[in-house]
């Protein structure tokens, strides 16, 4: 050991070998396929969102009278403001896509089964947090879409049984959408949600490490390869490709600002961002009670899917009910999304 290393080691008594251990974690060889490298993508995007989000807070003002003007300022006047906002906006959309792709991969390879049920649960929690991030995020712009999405979204919460009204008052900071609502959404977006997401991401990764990566039923090979450098390299390549794609997307489609929020006027044909299309279409088709109840059932089913799968396996062994039920739910969601996109 050099004198400097010894000096450092005395003050930070950590064995470098211990730090290197997680990098050598053996991974099953099926992870060499690109489709199995999707888990790290949302984590990278979360990092990018954190950086661009912090940059946006330098100019954003979370008060109704100034919020819209500050977003316009960022988009049209601040040097490179359009770029930072565009990357933030694009990365948030991509994060939803990549979390979904990761979930679909885990769903159709049944990687959530015993003993990994809890990790699916944490993953579903992260998906819901991602959607809440997106929802609170576009509510901050304070244009017409923001205002009415906030109104509709919070009113949906009011219809939840028992806790609906108190939860509505808590989220809005009052009975109606008011200046407190924007401040609260801002606090959630930049404080509460990042903290919860970081915690859950750490727990999610620790759980993957504790259990090891799930083996594929269809791939009985026992060989492994180390996380570093092979797998890490793939993740870095994906990250770089995403970054290149995002930057180009923002260059060609820079962000714009819609019309300022007008509480007394709901514009015609208003609808939320694409990731809420399935719920939006469902709410159009059903009564309020069924609409809200159905949405709660869907989300609950998503969280408890590993247990639902196990129960179906018990009731009808080897019938692969999970494939049919899982595919049906997936298809219905896609159909509702496309339906709203085309006919909305």
């Amino acid at each position, binding site marked *: 050991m050099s004198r400097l290393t010894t000096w450092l080691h005395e003050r930070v008594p950590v064995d470098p070998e211990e730090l290197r251990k997680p990098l050598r974690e053996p991974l099953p060889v099926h992870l060499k396929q690109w489709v199995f490298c999707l888990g790290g993508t949302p984590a990278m995007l979360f990092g990018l969102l954190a950086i661009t989000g912090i940059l946006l807070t330098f100019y954003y003002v979370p008060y109704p009278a100034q919020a819209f003007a500050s977003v316009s300022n960022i988009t049209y006047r601040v040097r490179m403001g359009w770029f930072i906002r565009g990357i933030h906006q694009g990365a948030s959309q991509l994060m939803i896509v990549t979390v979904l792709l990761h979930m679909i991969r885990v769903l159709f390879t049944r990687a959530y089964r015993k003993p990994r049920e809890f990790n699916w649960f944490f993953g579903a929690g992260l998906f819901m947090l991602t959607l809440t991030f997106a929802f609170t995020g576009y509510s901050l712009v304070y244009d017409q879409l923001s205002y009415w999405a906030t109104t509709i979204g919070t009113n*949906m919460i009011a219809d939840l049984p028992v806790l609906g009204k108190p939860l509505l*008052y808590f989220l809005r900071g009052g*009975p109606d959408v008011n200046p407190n609502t924007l401040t609260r959404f801002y606090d959630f977006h930049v404080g509460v949600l990042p903290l919860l997401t970081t915690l859950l991401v750490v727990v999610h990764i620790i759980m993957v490490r504790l259990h090891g990566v799930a083996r594929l039923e269809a791939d009985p090979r026992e060989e492994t390869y180390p996380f570093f450098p092979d797998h890490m390299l793939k993740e870095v390549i994906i990250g770089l490709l995403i970054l290149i794609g995002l930057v180009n997307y923002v260059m060609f489609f820079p962000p714009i600002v819609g019309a300022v929020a007008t509480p007394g*006027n*709901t514009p015609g044909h208003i609808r939320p961002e694409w990731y809420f299309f399935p719920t939006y279409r469902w709410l*159009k088709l*059903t009564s*309020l009670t069924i609409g809200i109840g159905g949405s709660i059932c869907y989300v609950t089913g998503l969280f408890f899917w590993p247990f639902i799968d196990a129960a179906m396996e018990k009731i009808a062994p080897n019938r692969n009910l999970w494939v049919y039920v899982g595919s049906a739910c997936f298809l219905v969601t896609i159909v509702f999304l496309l339906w709203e996109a085309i006919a909305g």
Partner: protein
Amino acid sequence: MGATSNAEQPNPPPTSRNRRQFLADAVLAVGAVLGLGGLAFRFAQYLYPVILPEKLVEVSAGKVAEIPEGGVRYVNLPEGPVMLENAGTEVRAFSAICTHLGCIVQWQKDRKEFVCPCHGGVYDINGKVTYGPPPRPLDPLEARIRSGEVFVMMKVRKEEPV
């Protein structure tokens, strides 16, 4: 020699030590739950907004003459959005807030219907639901006419101590 004397020392009965330990743990646990629970309750109180009581007030909604005959006029009052309908001998008023999820309905003159732009709910001229997901009719409001002016009774939250 030392080892022998150690072995000869009487050990306290394990059950009594366990009981004492359990009691200490239980007191600590109850204290922690009460202390942290109390703190969390105060935090929740801080975050929960003060909800002021509702009061019915009479609000001017403009002149009767401003409402087209047999038609509807939309008025966005500070107390809330209102639809005023000129029903010949009287003026009827409805809250313009869709009873589904709170968007503002729009009057379609040619169809004689109120339509919600969000989830497509449709109400007839009497405020009754004719299509879509709204769970109940538009909320009717009491309207009075004095000296050619329409006054609507509206619920507002007054800035008073709760």
